[in-house]
Every structure is written in C-alpha cells, then in structure tokens.
C-alpha cells in the first residue's frame, strides 16, 4: 500500500471514529467452519425480517460467495447502529479437492467445490477494501494462531479499522476462549455460541459499542 493511500485510509478511519458513524458495513471473516454463516443467520433472524444469509454445513467452504444484507439495525446499551452485514467465504491459504472427497463427494464435485472455494477466498479478500469493520469469527476449539487470523488482524490494524473478535462454539466442552484472548490480547473479544445463542446479547452490545 502506498504512503498516500495508507494516509488516506488511516485518516478516513480516524474521521469515521471521531464522527461516530451510525451506519457501517461489517464483514464476517474467519477460517472455514468457524461459524460465520451460523452467526450471520442469527443476527439477521434477531434484527431483520428473518430469512437467512446462507446454508450451513460441516463440509468446509460451504459459503463460496459473499452475501450482503443491508439495513440490519442492532440495539445495544441504549444506542443503535444500522449495519450492512457481509457474510464472506472462509479464508484459507490452501485448498485441496481431496479434502472434500473425504466428506463423501465425488471427484468431480470435489474439484468443482475446490475451484469455487478459491474464487470465494479472492472475493473475501476484495471485500476487505470496502468495509468499515470486521467481526473475526474464530472456532474456540481450534488453535487461534492460524495465518488467516494473523493476516486479517494485521490488515485491520494497518488500515486503522475496528475489529471485534468473536470466540464461537463455546457450547463445545473443548472450547478455550482464554487461548484466543491470550493470543490477541490487544483486541476486544466476545465469547458466544452462534448455534445456541449463548451470550448473543453481549455480542450485540459489543457491536453497538465497537462499530457505532
């Protein structure tokens, strides 16, 4: 990123913060199978006219196209914010069709999914240039030091944009949100189960506080 672009980017972020923008475009980012679409569906269910942003599956890269829902108004702590929610495909540094065949897909289906998944990662990256903030969804049962997490956090820090870490899947006994907090102590974190809705009100308050 050039110095002028970087300067514009960071000044823009500071000005948005100073004037407390009340409408923001927020991307849900994270590795595949972290629960991004489950969370996006829950937000839309709770604060919009229902429906869903996408289907959920245990097979990685189920979401292979970014989906945006406009005008989701979230209230929390006495303030409200209008969000455009963007559910992005899972980010990865490698995609092997053999991984999909292990889930019972035919070779042809697996290769098609792999190709679409690579396009999805590119789409997720392109969206980074057009967002006001990020909800970084992490699977609390997994090691948080993945390159996807490190790269997304590094990019948001460099752009001076707000980031909220969502430690998901706390309904699972092996989850360890403390491990995530220890890895990225400089960022706000909320622990939730998007599937069961645990702590979801706390998340909405944090969204209003961080992006409002």
């Amino acid at each position: 990123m050039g110095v002028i672009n970087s300067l514009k980017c960071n000044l823009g972020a500071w000005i948005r913060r100073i004037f407390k923008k009340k409408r923001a475009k927020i991307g849900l980012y994270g590795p595949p199978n972290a629960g991004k679409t489950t969370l996006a569906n829950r937000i839309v269910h709770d604060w919009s006219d229902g429906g869903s942003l996408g289907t959920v599956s245990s097979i990685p890269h189920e979401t292979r196209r970014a989906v945006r829902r406009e005008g989701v108004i979230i209230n929390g702590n006495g303030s409200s914010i209008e969000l455009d929610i963007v559910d992005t495909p899972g980010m990865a540094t490698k995609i092997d069709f053999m991984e999909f065949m292990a889930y019972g897909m035919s070779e042809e289906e697996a290769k098609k999914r792999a190709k679409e998944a690579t396009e999805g990662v590119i789409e997720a990256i392109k969206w980074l240039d057009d967002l006001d903030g990020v909800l970084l969804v992490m699977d609390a049962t997994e090691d948080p030091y993945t390159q996807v997490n490190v790269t997304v956090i590094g990019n948001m820090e460099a752009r001076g944009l707000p980031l909220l870490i969502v430690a998901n899947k706390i309904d699972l006994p092996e989850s360890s949100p403390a491990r995530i907090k220890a890895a990225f102590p400089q960022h706000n974190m909320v622990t939730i189960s998007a599937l069961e809705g645990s702590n979801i009100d706390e998340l909405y308050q944090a969204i209003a506080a961080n992006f409002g």
Partner: protein
Amino acid sequence: MDLISGEKLEKMTSMEKIRLILDKVKTGRIVVLESGLSPDEEVRLIEMTMTEIRVDEFSGIEIESYPTKKGGSFFDKLLGKAGKGRMTVIGPANQLRTIEKDQYQISTKVSVGD
C-alpha cells in the same frame, strides 16, 4: 530452503516479493523471509496463491508468521507503519505443516520428496 534477507526484501516491490515467493514455493522450496511481509502483502500473496491453485499440481501454501508487534510513533500509525513484518516461513501446502505456534515460536514439519 531459501533464507531471504531483510535487506534484499527492502529493495523489492510488493509484486516482486510475491512473485519470487510463489515461483520458489511452486517448485517445492521452503522460503524464510527475515523481515516478513506487510499485512497488505500477506493478503495479496494469499489472493495470488488462490489464482495459481491447480488440481494435482499445486494446492496452495502454508504460511506462518508471528502476529505483528503493536506500537510505533504517532506518525508511524498515521502512515500505517505501526505493524512491521516479522520473520515468516512459507512453503508448499503438501510439504510444510505447522506443528505448533505461539507468539514467540513456530514449529513446523517439512516433508521431503513428496
């Protein structure tokens, strides 16, 4: 394995770094960058990797770096230079596997002759 000095990296443009890394990794080499990549370069490397994935030929990269160090002066932050790149290891996804990683140490396993 190629260890690339920070001095060499400083003289290269972002695109030159990404091309150098991918060309080496696609031929099975492990690349260690002394001073790493900027966050923007990291994300562009992932983007470029996705465009070069081919079934049965190249399934992507394994890339490991430490979280960026916070800090820097007011002007560093203003110019987006607060997070300086740290040592980074990159290799073919089918040959380099991360065993363990924390803020201070990266342990990887390298398969030879795959």
